[in-house]
């Protein structure tokens, strides 16, 4: 895997976790839609990106899944955040904020001392 995918996967995982935290249990399609909406339709998720990320999170124990019925009565698999996932989300949110803050400093107008 290239570095770029790694970063993307890591970021995607964070987005998935955040989405599940905000919306509660949700199926893959719902997650994809929500992420696309939140990004202002600047992101587009296909299967190949979303489902491996979901599987990985599930194997790591951050999310759990079970089959249920969607709003318009389709059978779908619903994902929910586990306790491990909640902790992971907190931790990664913090790291992410820290990282972006650091990067942001490089781009903000110089406040040299």
């Amino acid at each position, binding site marked *: 895997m290239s570095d770029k995918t790694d970063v993307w996967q*890591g*970021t995607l995982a964070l987005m998935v976790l955040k989405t599940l935290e905000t919306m509660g249990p949700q*199926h893959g399609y719902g997650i994809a839609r929500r992420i696309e909406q939140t990004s202002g339709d600047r992101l587009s998720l296909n299967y190949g990106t979303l489902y491996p990320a979901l599987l990985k999170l599930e*194997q*790591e124990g951050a999310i759990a899944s079970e089959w249920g019925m*969607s709003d318009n009565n389709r059978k779908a698999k619903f994902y929910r955040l586990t306790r491990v996932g909640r902790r992971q989300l907190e931790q990664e949110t913090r790291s992410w904020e820290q990282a972006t803050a650091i990067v942001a400093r490089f781009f903000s107008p110089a406040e040299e001392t």
Partner: protein
Amino acid sequence: MRRLIPHSPTRNLRAFWIRLLGLLGARRSHHEIAAELDSHLQMHIDDNLRAGMTQKEARRQALIQLGGMEQTQQTLRERNTLPWAETLAQDLRFAVRQLRKSPGFAAVVITTLALGIGVNTALFSIVNTVLLHPIALPRPAELVAVDASKPNFERGSISYPNFRDWQRDNRSFSALAVFRHHGFLLTGTGESERLHGEYVSSSLFPLLEVKPVLGRLFAPDEDEIGRGPVVLIGQGLWARKFGSDPRILGRTLTLDGGNYSIVGVIPAAFDLKFSTFATEDIYVPIGQWPDSALKDRGAGLGIHGVARLKPGVTLAQARADMNAVSDHLAAVYPEDDHGLRASLRPLRDAIVGNVQPVLLVLLAAVGFVLLIACVNVANLLLARSNARAQEFAVRLALGASRKRIVRQLLTESTLLALAGGALGLALAAWGTGASLKLVPAALPRAAQIHLSPLVLCFTFLISLAVGIFFGLFPAWRVAAQQPQNTLKEGGRGMSGARHRAQDWLVVFEMAAALVLLVGAGLTIRSLIALSRADPGFQSQGVLTFSLAVPYSPATSTEEGAFDYLHELDRRMDGVPGVHAVSLMADGGVPLTGDDDEELFWLQNEPRPSDQNDMHWALRYIVEPDYLKVMRIPLLRGRFFTDADLPNTPPVVVIDEDFAHQFFGDRDPVGQVLNLTDPDQKATIVGVVGHVMQWGLDNDAGFPLRSQIYRSVTQGNGDGGIPVAGFTSDIVIRADNPETVFPDIRSAVRRMNAQQVAYGPKTMDQIIADTLAARRFSMILLGAFAALALLLATVGLYGVISYLVGQRTQEMAIRMALGADRANVLRWVLRRGATLAGIGVGAGTIAALLVTRLMANISLAKSSLIYGVRPWDPVTMFGVIVVLMVVALAACYVPARRAASVDPVRALRSE
């Protein structure tokens, strides 16, 4: 910064486990993945429809956005499990499919390997128990067997006073113990019976770290002379005689007429056999031994010892220390201890020393068998990969990596090897039991031999190694090929080089089989030579047993005792089929490992100051009929008669070795000897033939060979039968030695209900027992050699068949051009004979080297090869003929097939 968000190791580990579980089936099914993606797609289409698209457009847009369903499924599947394991599973499935397509090939390979691995597993399980774990006690490496080395005995018995002094003076042992085997007569507890037991020092069980299952062990000073009589019993006896009653402690056991208080029970798991010690039913403190000679520092009473080295003390240090201790005692007690030293050797050597070399020979032999089996398999794999060269050439041409192909072939060969190993394990389980049943007496700890986890590991590893190692060569050959050449040649590529490799493998097999056959042949010839060896007496028709004679007031005087023994003889003589009877009052039945000695000096010599400077001879105290029983030839003078009585001048009879050693060419009859037990002068009245006392094959290797006979009827000064009763060995000559014993036992019991005859054994059986280890190695070597011959023959057959199969066309052309069938037949046979011949030549040279090694391998003081020369021409010639005949027979079948080829049909099939 490579990752903005670091990965946690625990999370990775968890994911790994889940994926591993996924391999084992606890994963999302492909179906489930497809269902989830499909539901996603449907929801997307639903939304698109709601946005006003047509059904067709909605579906198209959704598919465009979502990307390839198939790739996603593939990614998910890979993520679901571990890819390399998935590949392995794929390879395995493919291998199984391939093998199922050629069941004959698979069956031959698996059977071949099963035979090879089976014999190795069986033998390894023996070696594992006997050589690797011979002592089932804590810290066995610290244990040493202790004996006294004296001029006539390398490992002689330790006298009780010396034991006490060694115990006190040594600084090397954390403990030193002694034991003395004894047969006890148990009376008063059910039917009278004979129990094997040991007189032991108190230190024995603590030293061996054996804990009682009930009660206590002997207290430290409880083994001294004059202490109260106590006894420890074995768990087996406890169960048999007392129903494992826990209230047994304090109860009385009457042994040899004395009352012993039971203080504890020794666990059945305690299992040790070395020197004269064996795990038995009865243990009595050594101080209870009734023989007054116990206090005699110079007495050789058959007491031997065992010690535990202090931590950190080496054997060499202990030897030096004990030498100093013995030398000091020799200075203080020159009369008894002159020339006497403690002799130490690791307990392990004492237990397995005799069988170790033989087991190693057998291990080498099965190694050869496995090698031959593997060579066969490598040959078959080569042939098979040649047949599949096309297939792999195509795959290579289509871009398969060489690594992948090698891996695939290795998977196949490893699978075969593991299957062979599994089958071999079953064979081994059966074979170990069968081979041990042949000769249980030949091996220490035979009962403990089983397929332990270590053995299973051994089999698994050996199978794995065989699969990989012998699969690698053929696999590499296939993978290294140039596909274009193979494809051009239409499947016959690389055949030249491959034939050469196969030829060499067959030559090797033939040579190895020959070496094994020669080895087996020599052991068989040795055993035949031994079965013809003359022990100095006629064993056929002789029965030996022991008799425990109880004390009674009537036998307390010498006359009473003689009358009693006369009556005993009369009763036994009266049993139908019995021709002659003789007591052997102090034991020493030939070839049983028992012996008794006479110390003496010649008439013209001064009395030596200490007994180790006296002459020693093997002593037999017998009755006049002894020669008749044993059919030992009388060479000069006379043997004893009923007229030799206590009040007539003492007489002795000697054997020819005695005569030669002490009188050279002079006539010994009429010469006088000074005897010591009791001190008296005795006249030699006759000379008889020498008897092999120590063993058929190793008698000459013992320093003490001269033999002297004394008569029971002249007594040895002890008077009547002692209060404890006495035990004598008895030999009889009968028409039916195998079946006469019950009659004798009841005749003896009718005379006195407390009198027990026990331990019957025919002399033939005793001789067979002495050869047990030899027979064990002969049977196993023979079986291994037969197996090697079979495998090598199958190998040769396979190669020639393969050759014929490959050359069918060539032969068809030959025949079409006028060669007759006999020519073709000869050509094939010649080819087979050439291979076999080269193998035989190489094998003969190897055999000459190997048998010379074998001749140096000894079985209890005598060479494994006995009575034949290592290069024995009969064996060599016989083996070569057998091998060539079998080889030609193996070639004949494919040769016939070749000769019966119909040229027209063979050529048309191209």
